[in-house]
C-alpha cells in the first residue's frame, strides 16, 4: 500500500468514527473530542519535527503547553489596577535584577581569565546575592498583591487584549524558554536530554502552580475571554431560533454546537497553517539537512553543518508549535488550571501519538493525534463494557466483579502502554511511515 492510499483510508475511517460518535452519542461529544483531537495533533506535529526529523528527544511537552496557557492570562485578562499600584513594578525590577545577575555571572564565567575554581565561586556568589536581593525586593509586594481580594484577583492580571493574540504570544514564550533550555541541555546525550527536559518542564509547572501573583497558582484563573460568541448571546439571535426549528434540535444544544464548531474552524485553520509550513520545511534543503544530521551526526558535521545550532533551531521551532497548541487548549477550556498539566502522563501521550502515527511523517502525526486522543477518551466506556461482558456470567454480589468494575476505568493506561509496545514491536515505522526521499 502506498502512503497516499494509507493516508486516505485512515483519514476517512477516522472521519466515519467521529460521525458515528456524533450519531450514537451526541454531536456535542463528537465535537468536543474533535477539538481536542485537533489540539493534540498540533502538539504531535511539534514533537514530530523534533523527534521524527531531527532525532531530538523532548519530554518537556507539558511545560511548553503550560507556558502557552500562561500567555492567555498575560494577554487577555484585565489588569488588576490595585496590584500594579501596590508593587507590580518592584516585582518586575526584582526579577530583572535576578536575571541580570545570572547574565553577569555567565559573562564573567566565559570572559574572565581566572582559574576554574575562582570562576565557579564568583559566579555562584553573584547569583546567590542576586537571588537574595530579589527576595528582599519582591517578598513584601507579593504578599500585598496576593492579599488583594484573594477570592477574585490577587494577581497582576494581563493586558486586556483580544485572546487570539495570545496564541502567537504563547508560541513566542515557549520559543524563548526553549532557547534557554536548549542552550543548557542540547549538548547532552539523548537519554540525559530526555530527563533534563522532563525535569525542566516540571520546574516550569511548579512555578506556575506556586507563584500566585503571576497565575493565581492552584486557585486557577477562570473566565478567560473567548474568540467565539457565548452560548447565551447566541440563544437570543433570530437566525438560531429559525435553524433550530428547521433542524429540530433544541436551542441550547444547537448554540453549544455552533460555539464548538467555530472553535473547530479556528483550530483547523491553525492546524492547516502549521502543517503547510512544516511540509515546506521538511521538503526543503533544510529538511534534508535535518535528516542527514539525524541519521549520521559525524558525517553531517564533516560536511560543515553546525549541528548544535541546527538542533537548537529545530528545538525552538517544535517547542513554539507546542506552545501555540497549549495556548489554544487553555482558550478552549476558558480557564487556566496549572494542576491539570501532568508532565509524566500527558507528555508521553503526545509521544505515543507521534510514534503510533509514524515518526517523520506529518500526516502520520495528525492521524496519530486523532486516534490516540479518541482512544484515550473512549477507552473508559470501552473498558467498562469489556469488563462487564467478561464478568456477565458472574453474579452481581461477587466481590471480584464489583472490584473489577470499579477499577475498569484504569484499564486505559494499560491500553496505552499496550498500544505503544505493540507498535514499537511490530510496526516501528508507525501507521504512515516516513516518506523515502
Amino acid at each position, binding site marked *: 500500500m502506498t502512503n497516499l492510499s494509507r493516508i486516505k483510508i485512515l483519514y476517512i475511517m477516522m472521519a466515519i468514527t467521529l460521525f458515528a460518535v456524533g450519531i450514537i452519542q451526541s454531536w456535542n461529544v463528537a465535537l468536543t473530542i474533535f477539538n481536542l483531537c485537533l489540539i493534540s495533533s498540533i502538539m504531535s506535529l511539534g514533537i514530530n519535527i523534533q523527534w521524527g526529523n531531527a532525532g531530538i*528527544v523532548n519530554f518537556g511537552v507539558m511545560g511548553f503547553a503550560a507556558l502557552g496557557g500562561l500567555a492567555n492570562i498575560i494577554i487577555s485578562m484585565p489588569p488588576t489596577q490595585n496590584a500594579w499600584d501596590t508593587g507590580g513594578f518592584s516585582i518586575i525590577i526584582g526579577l530583572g535584577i535576578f536575571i541580570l545577575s545570572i547574565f553577569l555571572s555567565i559573562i564573567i564565567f566565559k570572559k574572565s581569565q581566572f582559574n576554574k575554581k575562582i570562576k*565557579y565561586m564568583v559566579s555562584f556568589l553573584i547569583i546567590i546575592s542576586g537571588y537574595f536581593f530579589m527576595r528582599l525586593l519582591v*517578598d513584601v509586594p507579593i504578599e500585598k498583591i496576593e492579599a488583594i481580594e484573594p477570592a477574585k484577583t490577587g494577581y497582576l492580571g494581563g493586558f486586556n487584549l483580544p485572546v487570539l493574540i495570545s496564541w502567537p504570544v504563547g508560541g513566542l514564550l515557549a520559543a524563548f524558554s526553549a532557547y534557554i533550555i536548549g542552550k*543548557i*541541555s542540547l*549538548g*547532552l546525550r*539523548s*537519554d*540525559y536530554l*530526555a*530527563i*533534563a527536559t*522532563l*525535569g*525542566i518542564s*516540571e*520546574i516550569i509547572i*511548579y*512555578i506556575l*502552580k*506556586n507563584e500566585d501573583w503571576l497565575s493565581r497558582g492552584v486557585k486557577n484563573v477562570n473566565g478567560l475571554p473567548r474568540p467565539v460568541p457565548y452560548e447565551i448571546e447566541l440563544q437570543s439571535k433570530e437566525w438560531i431560533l429559525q435553524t433550530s426549528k428547521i433542524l429540530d434540535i433544541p436551542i441550547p444544544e444547537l448554540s453549544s454546537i455552533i460555539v464548538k464548531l467555530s472553535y473547530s474552524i479556528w483550530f483547523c485553520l491553525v492546524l492547516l497553517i502549521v502543517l503547510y509550513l512544516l511540509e515546506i520545511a521538511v521538503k526543503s534543503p533544510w529538511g534534508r539537512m535535518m535528516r542527514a544530521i539525524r541519521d549520521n551526526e559525524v558525517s553531517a558535521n564533516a560536511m560543515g553543518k553546525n549541528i548544535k545550532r541546527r538542533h537548537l533551531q529545530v528545538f525552538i521551532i517544535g517547542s513554539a508549535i507546542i506552545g501555540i497548541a497549549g495556548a489554544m487548549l487553555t482558550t478552549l477550556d476558558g480557564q487556566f488550571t496549572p494542576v491539570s498539566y501532568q508532565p*509524566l*502522563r500527558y507528555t*508521553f501521550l503526545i*509521544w505515543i501519538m507521534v*510514534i503510533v502515527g509514524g515518526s517523520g511523517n506529518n500526516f502520520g502525526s495528525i492521524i496519530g493525534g486523532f486516534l490516540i486522543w479518541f482512544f484515550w477518551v473512549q477507552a473508559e466506556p470501552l473498558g467498562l463494557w469489556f469488563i462487564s461482558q467478561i464478568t456477565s456470567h458472574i453474579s452481581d454480589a461477587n466481590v471480584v466483579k464489583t*472490584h*473489577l468494575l*470499579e*477499577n*475498569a476505568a*484504569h*484499564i*486505559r*493506561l*494499560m*491500553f*496505552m*502502554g*499496550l498500544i*505503544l*509496545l505493540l507498535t*514499537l*514491536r511490530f510496526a*516501528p515505522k508507525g501507521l504512515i511511515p516516513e516518506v523515502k526521499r
Partner: protein
Amino acid sequence: MISNYIVIPGLTYGSQLALGALGITIVYSVLRFSNFAHGEFMSFGAMSSILLCWLFISLEINLYPLPTAILVLPIAIIFTIFYCLIVDKLIFKFYRQQNSKSVINLIVSIGVMFFTGGLIRFIVGPGDKNFFDGERFVFKAKTFKNFTGLNEGLTLKTTQGITILITVLLVILLFWFLNKTKTGKSMRAYSDNKDLALLSGINPEKVVLITWVITGTLACVAGTLYGLDKSYKPFTYLHLVLPIFSAAIVGGVGNPVGAIIGGFVIAFSELIITFAYKKIFFYFLPSFMVPEGLLQILSTDYKIAISFIILVLVLLIKPTGIYKGKVI
C-alpha cells in the same frame, strides 16, 4: 532540633532514593538504557507487599513490634523479580537482540511504565493505602528528653529506623556481591566491555538475569519502604521516578557509589533548602533580633522542584555526575 527535622528525615528519604537510584544505575550500566518503568516496578513491589500483608493479617501472623510488611518482604521480592523477568522476556529481550538504540529502549520502558501503572491501578485501585502496623515510634520525644536531659526532643519512627537499617544491610550485601563473588565480577566485566566479556566466555543471558534479580529486589524494597514511611498511593510512585533519576544522574549514572551519594545529596538539599530557619535563629539570637517570616530559602511548595534544579546544575557543570559514571 536540626537532627529531628533534617538529619533523620533526610537519612530516611535519602535511603529510599538511593535504593531506587541503585536499581536504575544497574539497569543502565548492564543493559544500557534509562529505565523509566523503575518507579512502577517499585510500585509493583509495594503493591505485592500490601496484598501479602492483608493476607497475613487475616491469618493473624505478625511480628508485633515490627510491622508485618517486614515479614512479607521476601515473598514480595520474589513476586517483583518474577514480574521483571516476565517483562524482560516478553519485551526488552527483543530490542536487546536487535541492538536497538538506547532511545528506543527508553521509549519501550515508557510503554512498560504505562502498562504496569494501569495494571497496578486495576488490581488495587488508585486510592490511598496505609499498611503500617506495629509500634509507631522507636523512642518518642518525651522519653528522649528524660533520657538525655536535653530540652529538645528527638523522635525516631519505627519506619525510619527500619528504612535506614535495611538500606545499609542491602547496600553492604550488594557491594559484597559485585566486588567479591564471581558472578558479580562477570557482571562488571560485561558492563565494562560487552564484546570482551562475551569472548571470555561469560554467559550474557545469565548476566541479564542476575541484573533483573537485583533490580527487582531493590525496586521492591525501596517501594515497600517508601510506602511504609509515607503511605502507598500509585500516583506518587509515578512521580517518584523523577527524583530517583536526578539522584542517579547527580551521582553519576552507572556508578553504584554515585547513586547512593546522589540519593542523599538530593534528599538533604531538599530538606535544607526548604527548612524554616526561624527556630534556629530563635536559639542563637536575642529575641528582638529574630526576624519575621519563616526564613526559608525557598518555600516548601518547591520541595520536589529542587531535585530538578540540582539536576540541571549538575548537568551544566559536570554532566558525568559527582562520581564519574559508566563503571559499575
